[in-house]
């Protein structure tokens, strides 16, 4: 432990780089803002009162720690590895997103910002941001792709109930990438009072590191819980990746535990092929610069960003956090992809066997568990990050399975 020369946990460097990835690729207008945020965060990191406030909110507002749950029937059915689910879908607001939002909003308050903006794909980050803003009496504006507004309608209404203004973004294909573009445009326009609360481990430094640190509570708890349950570390970690925040949160505390296999699951959409109807940046993309950082991106030969495709709004993003790009290149983590069809099957199996309606995002992770668990011995311990619940997805799933909601009347 703590061998700095051989540690995977020391990144990023002072320029916000993880190897060649990350950085601060933003316009001059935003540079002073991200430097001010970095300074604030560096201070908070070692400030006990900051962490005391975080833990208090995590405990009493979010409901942490989330359980580590042995999925007994699923394990039995698959007939191999012993499967544990890290139940972050039980958090207040229904996903891991709030872990990070609380940290950023506390920083925003310390910086005297009164207006919070956010981008959202599935709407979970938007709902978490709207929630925490309501709690602290802050103005909240959420950018959401028009296509996502449609397919995640329940979350749009939740945000409105919580007092947020939801702005549908019609540029591009109207998904997460476009929402992030407009959030950045808002930020350069409203520099004085506005704090940009990014929902994943992407964007310019310090966001990837900061969001990772806030989400790492997932992995820290999981490690302790696994030690308590089994007396040893898990063998394999599996998490779904949109931008990669729930995955980084689970993975980070285990990076230096060399015997722990780490697997990130990207959205394979209709299949990772030449048509690019997927969101598997690492499997099907190459390095580029977008949204403030260098990372793997889906792009054409001219460096134009491609739209990607996934049934899951939360994974429908053509990039991935820079730390994942680095972990991929150095081989510390493995990245695979799961198609829409496979994710839908996993979604249903989870409802059936465990009485848990998962979000479509972790359904991708579960689909990979379903693939590999049968091939592994019974004493192989898997932790899968059940990072969100599926209430928001029931309309999408109904449609994909050929149901009309009205049919049940």
């Amino acid at each position, binding site marked *: 432990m703590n061998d700095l020369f051989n540690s995977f946990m020391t990144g990023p460097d002072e320029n916000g780089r993880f190897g060649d990835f990350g950085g601060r690729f933003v316009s*001059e*207008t935003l*540079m002073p803002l991200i430097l001010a945020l970095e300074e604030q965060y560096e201070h908070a990191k070692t400030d006990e009162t900051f962490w005391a406030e975080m833990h208090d909110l995590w405990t009493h507002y979010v409901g942490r720690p989330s359980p580590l749950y042995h999925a007994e029937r699923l394990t039995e059915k698959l007939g191999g590895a012993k499967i544990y689910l890290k139940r972050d879908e039980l958090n207040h607001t229904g996903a891991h997103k709030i872990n990070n939002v609380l940290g950023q909003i506390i920083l925003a308050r310390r910086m005297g910002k009164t207006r919070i903006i956010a981008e959202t794909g599935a709407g979970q980050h938007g709902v978490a941001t709207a929630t925490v803003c309501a709690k602290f009496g802050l103005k909240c504006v959420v950018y959401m792709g028009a296509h996502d507004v449609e397919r995640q309608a329940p979350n749009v209404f939740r945000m409105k109930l919580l007092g947020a203004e939801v702005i549908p973004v019609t540029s591009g294909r109207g998904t997460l990438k476009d929402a992030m573009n407009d959030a950045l445009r808002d930020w350069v326009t409203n520099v004085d009072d506005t704090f940009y609360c990014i929902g994943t481990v992407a964007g310019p430094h310090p966001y990837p590191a900061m969001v990772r640190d806030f989400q790492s509570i997932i992995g820290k708890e999981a490690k302790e819980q696994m030690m308590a349950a089994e007396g040893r570390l898990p063998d394999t970690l599996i998490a779904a990746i949109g931008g990669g925040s729930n995955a980084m949160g689970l993975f980070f505390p285990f990076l230096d535990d060399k015997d722990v296999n780490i697997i990130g699951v990207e959205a394979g959409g209709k299949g990772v092929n030449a048509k690019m109807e997927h969101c598997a940046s690492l499997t099907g993309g190459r390095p580029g610069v*977008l949204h403030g950082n260098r990372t793997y*991106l889906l792009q054409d030969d001219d460096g134009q960003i491609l739209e990607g495709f996934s049934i899951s709004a939360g994974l429908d993003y053509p990039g991935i956090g820079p730390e994942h790009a680095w972990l991929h290149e150095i081989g510390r983590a493995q990245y695979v992809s799961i198609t829409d069809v496979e994710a839908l099957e996993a979604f249903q199996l989870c409802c059936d066997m465990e009485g848990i309606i998962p979000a479509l995002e972790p359904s991708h992770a579960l689909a990979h568990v379903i693939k590999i668990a049968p091939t592994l011995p019974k004493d192989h311990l898997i932790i899968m990050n059940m990072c969100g619940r599926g209430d928001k997805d029931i309309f999408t799933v109904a449609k994909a399975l050929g149901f009309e909601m009205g049919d049940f009347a």
Partner: protein
Amino acid sequence: MSKHSFIIDHHGGAAVFLCTQCEPEAQLYVHARHFLDNALAPLQVVMDIRDNSDGRQAIERSLPNDRTDREGMMTRIDDKFATLQAAGKKAFVTYIMAGDTDYDTSLEVMRGLPAAGVDVIELGLPFTDPVADGQTIQLAGQRALDAGQTLKKTLAMAKTFREDDTTTPIVIMGYYNPIYSMGVDKFLTAAVDAGVDGLIIVDLPPEEDAELCLPAKEVGINFIRLATPTTDAKRLPKVIENTSGFIYYVSMNGITGTATAQVNAVAPEVTRIKQATDLPVVIGFGVKTPEAAKTFADLGDGVVVGSAIVERIGRGDAPADVLAFVKTLADAAHS
């Protein structure tokens, strides 16, 4: 104008450029790390030489030896500002999107800009995700991409323009990813070949100078930086440090083509920047009318108009009508 073709060879710590066509044979020795690194085998570069200047001088200008030597070097942009200053005039700078509404239309507009009174041309490089731009330029980029515009075609457009205009500086303005995707070395070689003089790459702040700014300086291309209302006194020296050609002062916090620039906000900022640098300061963002062009040109050393022109191209105005509008802006800025 004539093309000179050079064989580059090694000579101790220097590279020697031998022109294959000149009489007597033009030779130029340069400590060109940039070329040496790549010139493991002799390779050929083609360069533009100005009509009325002696070949040797021009070569020295477009191929700086190294960074220290570059400081004394004049680029087409420096020449232009020097000429304007001598005449007591402000620079009128325009932005158009390459390939909008298609390649031929934008080339036609570009070719007409100098005659309409434009001193420096910012040639927009289309990108799918232009986060610093408002709707007018977002849509222009989309039209250009839909019409098949690429970085390669944008460089080809600059090169074609250079065939009959050797004095109007061309500044490529856009975002980093298409350049990164092509490869910085490959891009810079092509940009020098196309007669590009400067770059404004919005998402490359001083913190990322090693990416493109420093390599561009090494090949004699100006890297023009944006200074903004958020660039405070502490940060300004960092912004100025590796900037050359001119400083582009962004008149407001925001994106292109939305709000209108405000004189009382801009004036003190320009004064502040001019106290910190000898570089010309050009003001842009939110300048839409001839009156505003004059007002803001007078505050600094020049003014940029973009969205107001792009909007006319976008709504289908004929190039001649677009250029007539540009002329009213130029006349005002120069008055």
